[in-house]
């Protein structure tokens, strides 16, 4: 470090990288995060990208960004607002300005602030020259020129040279936060092993960026974020979709079964299909179906065949799967349906998230159609809940929905890795013979699960289907009393899952004025808001639902210990509607936003604080 410069220690920083879809912002953010992880910070990321693959270069719809918060403490969100913005062009600056705190640092690629690019981003005047940025510290860096200078003599083409400029910006950020660039250098060497000239160029640019930040007089201070006090253990970085894929593979091994995944590509669920398609050496069978219906149909076929039938989609695809999901309800087959929720209705905003499919997964089918629903609360929790979804489906012979969302799918955090040997096996039995004629709708006395007889087993030949079923024999039945009885039996079977799931725990006092109850991906924002309030001496309790159908057994008794229960949801009030029905004597209040992005910690802090 240059001798004139100083170093300051800070607790947490939020950095946002923004640029054109082709500028490599997701990669830059990922690399910065990977090094952050190795440095021992806790972190949480929020990638945001347009649904268009390559919107016209330099335009507002083409902006792709990546936000990461890292900290010396345990954190749960990617940060409300950035302390530092790296903006690769005028469009990125325009889209991202509202995400930077007043007084924050903005590093702009001044090479891109030409008349042409300003016009594409609809800036009437150049924001670097007018008063737009007076509230911020601005560092203008001609990234394109500096990158070209750094690569003089390298054998790359002009367009290839300019594509390296994200590494210049990354190098600067490594200097600013006092991190080593070694991890990224290793990654570049691995990634471009067959293109040594690309390796040399990117490494050169990365180092040039680092040195530039060290030399430039504008940056006088660099910052240090000390190691976080995470629980001891081995960690890796993980996104929700990655964790889900690994979780389902793990569950299949724990059950000693083949994992079959039938799916049709859809944002933001496709990552799971891609990850599972790679896992051929685990015997995973992936089937890219012709449509959403074929995808769920194939999963039902695999479950009928006695293996793990899994399908995955997002909201619009779930609509198409409804009829087949009901077939799984009627035939009582253990099919698992992943729904990575995105903004709706209809095509909506494919790359944006919300929690608006809860009532759909519970009730969006004809007839009385009970389905178990689990919802992960953090990216790494997708692993645990994937295993849970399989365990519940196989144990209780029922379809289970795994309700994730677009934020969990793509957001990354450190995952404390489980001890693999300690994961409990999932017990599965297939009958091999039967006392008397086989009765496919006989039930286990405890769980009410029906027997799972595999085709190919001699003596257990039977027929199932979507028509009404007679109790025990499973024969087609139009008998009115039988029909009603079967409706209640199927409902009771799902209700009894409550005996097989953990009770809900309360963080903070077990009784009091206010409980904040959430579900799914809002866990992190609620946790952070309550932590901030507690530091200010304002205490409220937190509980979070991983199981949405059935609810944990003790939910009612927990809720009744509080004067008011606040339900923050990223929808117009779906969980609260259910809770008001189940617990009419509890006083619920909703806090609802449906903007396509996660809750800001600040808005929750303000809302909850106002109630204390």
């Amino acid at each position, binding site marked *: 470090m240059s001798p004139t410069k100083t170093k300051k220690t800070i607790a947490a920083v939020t950095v946002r990288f923004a640029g054109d879809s082709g500028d490599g912002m997701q990669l830059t953010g990922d690399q910065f995060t990977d090094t952050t*992880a*190795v440095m*021992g910070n806790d972190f949480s990321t929020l990638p945001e990208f347009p649904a268009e693959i390559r919107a016209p270069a330099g335009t507002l719809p083409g902006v792709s960004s990546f936000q990461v918060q890292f900290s010396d403490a345990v954190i749960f969100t990617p940060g409300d607002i950035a302390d530092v913005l790296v903006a690769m062009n005028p469009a990125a600056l325009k889209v991202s300005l509202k995400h930077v705190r007043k007084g924050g640092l903005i590093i702009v690629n001044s090479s891109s602030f030409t008349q042409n690019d300003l016009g594409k981003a609809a800036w009437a005047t150049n924001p670097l020259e007018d008063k737009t940025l007076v509230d911020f510290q601005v560092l203008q860096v001609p990234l394109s020129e500096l990158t070209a200078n750094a690569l003089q003599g390298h054998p790359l083409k002009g367009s290839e040279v300019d594509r390296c400029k994200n590494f210049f910006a990354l190098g600067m950020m490594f200097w600013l936060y006092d991190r080593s660039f070694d991890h990224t250098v290793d990654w570049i060497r691995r990634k471009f092993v067959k293109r040594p000239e690309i390796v040399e160029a990117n490494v050169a640019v990365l180092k040039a960026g680092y040195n530039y930040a060290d030399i430039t007089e504008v940056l006088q201070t660099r910052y240090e974020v000390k190691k*976080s006090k995470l*629980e001891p*253990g*081995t*960690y*890796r970085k*993980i996104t929700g979709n990655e964790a889900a894929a690994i979780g389902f*593979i*793990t569950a299949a*091994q724990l059950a000693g079964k*083949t994992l*079959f995944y*039938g799916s049709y590509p859809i944002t933001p669920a496709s990552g799971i299909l891609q990850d599972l398609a790679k*896992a*051929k*050496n*685990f*015997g995973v*069978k992936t*089937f890219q*179906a*012709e*449509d959403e219906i*074929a*995808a*769920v*149909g*194939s999963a*039902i*076929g*695999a*479950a*009928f*065949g*006695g293996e793990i039938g899994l399908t995955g989609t997002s909201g619009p695809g779930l609509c198409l799967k409804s*009829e*087949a999901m009901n*077939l799984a309800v009627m*035939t009582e087959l253990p099919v698992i349906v992943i729904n990575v929720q995105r903004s709706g209705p209809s095509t909506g905003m494919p790359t944006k998230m919300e929690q608006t499919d809860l009532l759909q997964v519970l009730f969006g089918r004809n007839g009385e159609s009970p389905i178990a629903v689990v919802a992960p609360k953090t990216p790494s929790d997708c692993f645990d809940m994937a295993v849970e979804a399989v365990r519940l489906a196989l144990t209780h012979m029922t379809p289970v929905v795994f309700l994730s969302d677009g934020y969990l799918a793509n957001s990354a955090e450190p995952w*404390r*890795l*489980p001890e*693999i040997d300690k994961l409990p096996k999932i017990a599965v039995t297939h009958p091999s013979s039967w006392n008397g004629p086989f009765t496919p709708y006989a039930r286990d006395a405890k769980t009410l699960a029906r027997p799972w007889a595999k*085709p*190919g*087993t*001699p*003596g257990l*030949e*039977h*027929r*199932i*289907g*979507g*028509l009404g079923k007679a109790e025990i024999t499973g*024969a*087609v039945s139009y008998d009115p009393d039988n029909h009603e009885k079967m409706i209640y039996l199927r409902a009771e079977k799902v209700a009894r899952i409550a005996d097989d799931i953990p009770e809900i725990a309360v963080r903070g006092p077990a009784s009091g004025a206010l409980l904040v109850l959430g579900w799914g991906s809002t866990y992190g924002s609620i946790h952070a808001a309550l932590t901030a309030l507690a530091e200010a001496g304002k205490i409220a309790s937190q509980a979070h639902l991983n199981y949405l159908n059935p609810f944990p057994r003790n939910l009612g008794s927990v809720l009744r210990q509080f004067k008011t229960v606040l339900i923050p949801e990223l929808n117009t009030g779906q969980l609260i509607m259910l809770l008001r029905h189940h617990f009419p004597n509890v006083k619920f209040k909703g806090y609802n936003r449906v903007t396509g992005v996660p809750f800001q910690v600040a808005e929750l802090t303000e809302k909850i604080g106002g109630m204390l």
Partner: protein
Amino acid sequence: MNPLSPTDPRPKFTKNDFVSGAEVRWCPGCGDYSILGAMQQTLAKLDVPRENYVFVSGIGCSSRFPYYMNNYGFHTIHGRAPTIATGLRCVNPDLSIWVITGDGDGLSIGGNHIIHAMRRNLNFNIMLVNNQIYGLTKGQYSPTSPTGKMTKSSPYGSIDHPINPLCLAIASEATFIARTLDGDPRHMSMIFERAMKHKGVSFIEVYQNCIIFNDKTFQPVTGRDTREDRMVFLEHGKPLLFGKNKSKTVRLNGLFPEVVDYDPTNTRSLLIHDEADPRPHHAYLLTQMTYPDFPVPFGVFRSVEKPTYDELMNGQIADVIAKKGRGNLKDLIYGPDTWEVK
């Protein structure tokens, strides 16, 4: 198909072994009875134990089929039987799987799945029971009903152009394609057996008479008085002979077939049936031969070999395991990059 093991003590099968005992509820006189009987007869002839057969159907009259077979069966939802059969086939290569569908189930609501099951060459048999009408919903026109057909939902005649099931099968490059009819149990049985022995997807169209809503619709072709002149039974490697005393045949005039008198001394340009031709042209041409201009072909249109979907799927898995070794859960969970917190 997984044959009965030589040590299996069970006696040879009879037709009754494949009768489930559920009360058959088709209309009296329905063509489905003879199709069901022919299937049960056929299975009795083979030495595959009955637990290894699975009948998967969609919705419609013919889709009740699995309930009447004493095997594993799955009566699914409208049009989706091929998707369920696909998942089942992918996880179990040993079963003998039949998809039973109809002209509405298979070509209208489930048309997409039929196409994709065929082009993937999934190793199962698809029987499409074609009666050119919607029976279970009581008499609306179907995608195979001829233009002008007057039904409850087309009181002034259907304005839809019908789909040709076998033509769709050719376009989807199904590896086994055949046509048979409910009135000829022996022919049905021969076709069913050949379909089961075929490795890969088999697509069979069965002309079936709906006695209630579309009675005698195939009569002009298959009727006792007319069949000799209007039906032709395909035989591999032979000319297409039909008519009284097999006196007529079909020859090619350029790209187009024409009916001529059969002269065994002059076979130049005669259409010689070649079911094994890997190119689709010949079979396609046969699918276009329709009443009243041509005799309607019955039998095996096409039977060619291609790797099946489940072979390819399992082969890819075996290759990856051979190359990378069997997956280790710890490696998967730990991923490429970990760090320790002490």
